[in-house]
């Protein structure tokens, strides 16, 4: 696979949310506002990218019996670092607070461990980094689309700015997680109709 393919596959044909159906829990939880979704998308991209890079560098020395534990330690390190950094920057501090436990829960995001096991342990560092970043972006892309609709109809705002006309009655269903599942279902439907190769016979 060329580097270009490594980068483009996770964005569309192998999108972690719409095709692999990974990382669904957090995409329901953090898509109430666009700001939150954007910070989450960036955080996951950094974590998937760097964890793939680090574990690809370590891949030849990791004792096979404790493979998963070593992966977890590296992922946990990166997630804690991301969380601490978000807390220390003035602009991201309130968003980190709003995302609360979900930043910490990136550790349990199946995309991170999935890409390490499936890609980083068998490939060179540079392709692994690209694969990790692309998977994070593929995840983030869906997050932002979902958050766009949820914030627009749920709060009548975009990035916290009022866009719906005054007097718009906010839709509580859109704010609650089940609606995110409905939206993701619609995105999967559109993706599969557009790309016939994804359809099961």
């Amino acid at each position, binding site marked *: 696979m060329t580097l270009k393919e490594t980068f483009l596959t996770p964005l569309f044909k192998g999108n972690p949310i719409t095709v692999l159906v990974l990382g669904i829990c957090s995409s329901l939880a953090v898509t109430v506002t666009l700001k939150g979704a954007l910070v989450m998308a960036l955080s996951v991209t950094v974590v998937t990218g760097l964890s793939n890079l680090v574990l690809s560098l370590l891949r030849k020395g990791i004792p096979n019996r404790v493979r998963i534990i070593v992966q977890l*330690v590296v992922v946990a390190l990166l997630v804690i670092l991301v969380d601490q*950094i978000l*807390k220390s920057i003035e602009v991201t*501090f309130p968003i980190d607070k709003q995302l609360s436990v979900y930043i910490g829960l990136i550790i349990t995001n199946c995309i991170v461990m999935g890409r390490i096991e499936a890609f980083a342990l068998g490939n060179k560092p540079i392709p692994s980094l690209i694969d990790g970043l692309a998977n994070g972006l593929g995840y983030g892309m869906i997050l932002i689309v979902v958050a766009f609709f949820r914030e627009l109809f749920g709060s009548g705002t975009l990035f916290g700015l009022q866009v719906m006309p005054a007097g718009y009655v906010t839709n509580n269903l859109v704010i609650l997680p089940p609606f995110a599942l409905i939206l993701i279902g619609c995105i999967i439907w559109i993706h599969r109709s557009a790309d016939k190769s994804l359809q099961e016979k």
Partner: protein
Amino acid sequence: MNTNGNIYTIVYTTLIVVVVAGILAAAATFLKPSQQANIKAETISQMLQAAQFETAGLSNASKLDKYAEEIECAFVIDASGAKVRDLSVSRDNIQLIDNLKAQNYAIAGKGGYETGLPVYILKNGVTIIPCYGAGLWGPVWGYLAIEPDGCTIKGAYFDHESETAGLGSRIKDDPAFRTQFCGKKIAWGQKPSFEIIKGGAPEGQENAIDAITGATMTSRGLDAAINTWLAAYEPYFTAVKTTEEE
């Protein structure tokens, strides 16, 4: 090299864990000052918002400026309402008591009053006091701004750690909820001295507001937090009132 041997595995995992722990310790030490600055600015901003000052969109530095400009004095009191010590209010050394959890334990009788309860008095005579308690999923806390008469509420601001988005989170997100507090009166001496009533506060009751529909547990938690803390502050406000009447 055999990467599956016992010795190799033990040495390898030990090294990884030590390195990771080192990185984390360094990061925590390095980032702590800026994290604490953020928390301080946020606390200040919430107190100012309780006292009806607009702080949305201000940078951390301007929040501190605004506080230094409006504050008259700050101090901590003990269980009998007597002043224990002053808190600095100078711009470069603003002291806050923001570990409300510890104070909450003290009020509940689980620890001493060593740290004391904070009282912040603004130049316009408004007194700001905090409250803290358990919501549905995690802690809820906030600030009440009380007029110079010692019983009328000028405003309030609440925050929470993990209340349900769109329901319990409205204690923070819905301005209509906290606006209800403005102009209400605390009934000192009564139990409870303030009420958040499910189904709506009866018309004419001056110490009650409406609970949030769909967030019964959060409303109850906030009601309990407010009343517990008001009870702890009652000796102080009673003393202030008596002094004024003399």
